[in-house]
């Protein structure tokens, strides 16, 4: 059975990618399961989807613990522990990641035993973002080696039915392009063993005695506790305020920020709360002197280092 897990952010098309992959396997005569997994969070929050495919009935249920192939649409998710990108990755697990860095870097960084392949880094043009899913599906189909070009094309057409012809064509181009590019590596994903109860490891937990609701779910008497949730992890683009050009009309950016993540310091300058800024970039759009610009989140560390050096 093939166990494939796809990680991305809400809006990057990973749910669709899992459906395309599932339908393509189905076209090839496999039994298939595909399902997305996400919580109450929204566009930009980490999500994953998974696909099981086998030439026998699939009795396994639930999330995939030991993936044979992990697909990552957005490399900024790797260090986010809540995203669980490397969870259950074993010595044969293949990693496919959208990244500008070389496969060897990822192999070393994550201490991976299995093969690593990279796809070109996620597009900066946000209009292209939903197409990431198509290239992930195409590349994954090739790495598995069981899916023909025709089956992939058929799966995309059936999953995107109802979309405009140009959108379908563009998705096909991305998916088939990725499929062709990875031709030398066709079939490198190893079909894993069945997920029986044998390899099940009992979780390392501590049993707590049953408590009544006043203890296990106490009343919350504090206000504003939501600040404990770091929605800054959703961000793919980071707004930066250029305080030299800032007109100190902080009531504009501060009022319009949907998340209330721009505060005004004692000197009247706006300060962005990056723990909670979701990267919507409303501030960039409304700033009267255009003193706020955005950089991709993966460049933020470099930018901060350069600033410190200066």
């Amino acid at each position: 059975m093939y166990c494939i897990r796809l990680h991305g952010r809400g809006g990057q098309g990973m749910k669709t990618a899992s459906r395309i992959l599932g339908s393509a396997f189905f076209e090839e005569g496999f039994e298939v399961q595909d399902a997305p997994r996400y919580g109450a969070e929204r566009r930009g929050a980490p999500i994953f989807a998974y696909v099981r495919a086998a030439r026998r009935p699939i009795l396994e249920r639930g999330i995939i613990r030991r993936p044979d192939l992990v697909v990552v649409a957005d490399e900024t998710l790797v260090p986010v522990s809540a995203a669980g990108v490397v969870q259950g990755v074993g010595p044969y697990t293949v990693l496919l990641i959208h990244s500008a860095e070389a496969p060897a870097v990822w192999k070393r960084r994550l201490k991976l035993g299995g093969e690593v392949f990279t796809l070109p880094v996620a597009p900066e043009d946000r209009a292209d973002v939903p197409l990431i899913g198509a290239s992930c599906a195409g590349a994954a189909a090739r790495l598995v080696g069981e899916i023909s070009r025709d089956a992939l094309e058929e799966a995309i057409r059936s999953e995107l039915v109802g979309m405009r012809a140009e959108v379908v064509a563009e998705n096909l181009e991305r998916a088939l392009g990725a499929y062709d590019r990875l031709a030398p590596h066709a079939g490198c994903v190893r079909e894993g063993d069945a997920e029986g109860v044998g390899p099940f490891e009992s979780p390392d937990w501590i049993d707590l005695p049953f408590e009544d609701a006043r203890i296990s779910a106490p009343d919350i008497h504090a206000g504003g506790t939501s600040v404990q949730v770091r929605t800054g992890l959703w961000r793919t683009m980071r707004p930066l305020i250029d305080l030299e050009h800032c007109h100190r009309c902080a009531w504009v950016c501060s009022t319009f920020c949907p998340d209330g993540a721009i505060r005004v310091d004692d000197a009247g300058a706006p300060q962005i709360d990056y723990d909670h800024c979701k990267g919507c970039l409303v501030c960039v759009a409304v700033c009267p002197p255009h003193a706020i610009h955005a950089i991709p989140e993966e460049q933020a560390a470099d930018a901060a280092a350069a600033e410190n050096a200066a």
Partner: protein
Amino acid sequence: MTETAFRRMNDLPSTHLLGGGTAMCAGCGGLQAIQEVYDVLGKNTVFVNAAGCMTLLSIYPFTPFRGSWLYTAMASAPAGAQGVRDALDILVEKGRIPPEENVQVVVLTGDGAAYGMGVSATSGAIDRNLDFLYICYDNEGYGNTGQQYSEATPHAARTATSSGPRGYPGYKKDLFSIWAAHRPAYVATVIGAEPLDLARKIETAARVRGPRLILALAPCPTGWDFEPRDTIEIGRLAVRTGVWPLKECVDGQVVHTKVRRPRLPVEEYLKRQGRFEHLFAPERKPEILDEIQARVDAYWQRVE
């Protein structure tokens, strides 16, 4: 005109009461409006929240509010507000809480509840002259479940349940007039993209007693299909094209608080949103565009 604390943009609060870290989408126009509303209302409030996107504001044990929050089924928020109001009144009357701990009861619902399931409960609450403030964030569809059409969906918009070449065949319900016909103490429309107008209206609403109802258009990047950064721009266009009239109603008199002359063509608003894309491509649908424009023009002809 009554005295207002909000004369210029820089009178608006620059510290914000609502906590960050909520589960709303990046660029949420509803959350943006609620931020502004909450800053004016202050923390002496209790929110009664009908099921919808904003029920995700408070996910135990996290809440962005400084005070209490109560969750109700979709149709029942005004009934919940009645219970809270009555309880507070009794506690104050019996001296169990000091009058300064009395709080405003605020109902918060989306358009699914406000325009549809909750109309009856709202009508009853106004009828009973319940002292409460109702805030509806109107993103013109059941956004929390994937933008199925609601009675607030505008004509021709694409929704998850109206995906044909002509979009949603119905017309947006005029909830402002339905509410106003009940003669409550105050009714107003607002939008987060016009924060001064919003702040003055919330200030007015907070001053009076009785039923007060606020309808906030909430541009929705996910449901309306536009980039999160454009939330404010789309909101401004809704006002400048005349699609979303900013108005208030006191004692049966409707006053428009921000009138744009000349109005921009509605196309300027529609073409920025993916939910109206089918009106422009693959070929332009002039008959639908003209109809939408004509309806907006007819509205303003009636009021001007």
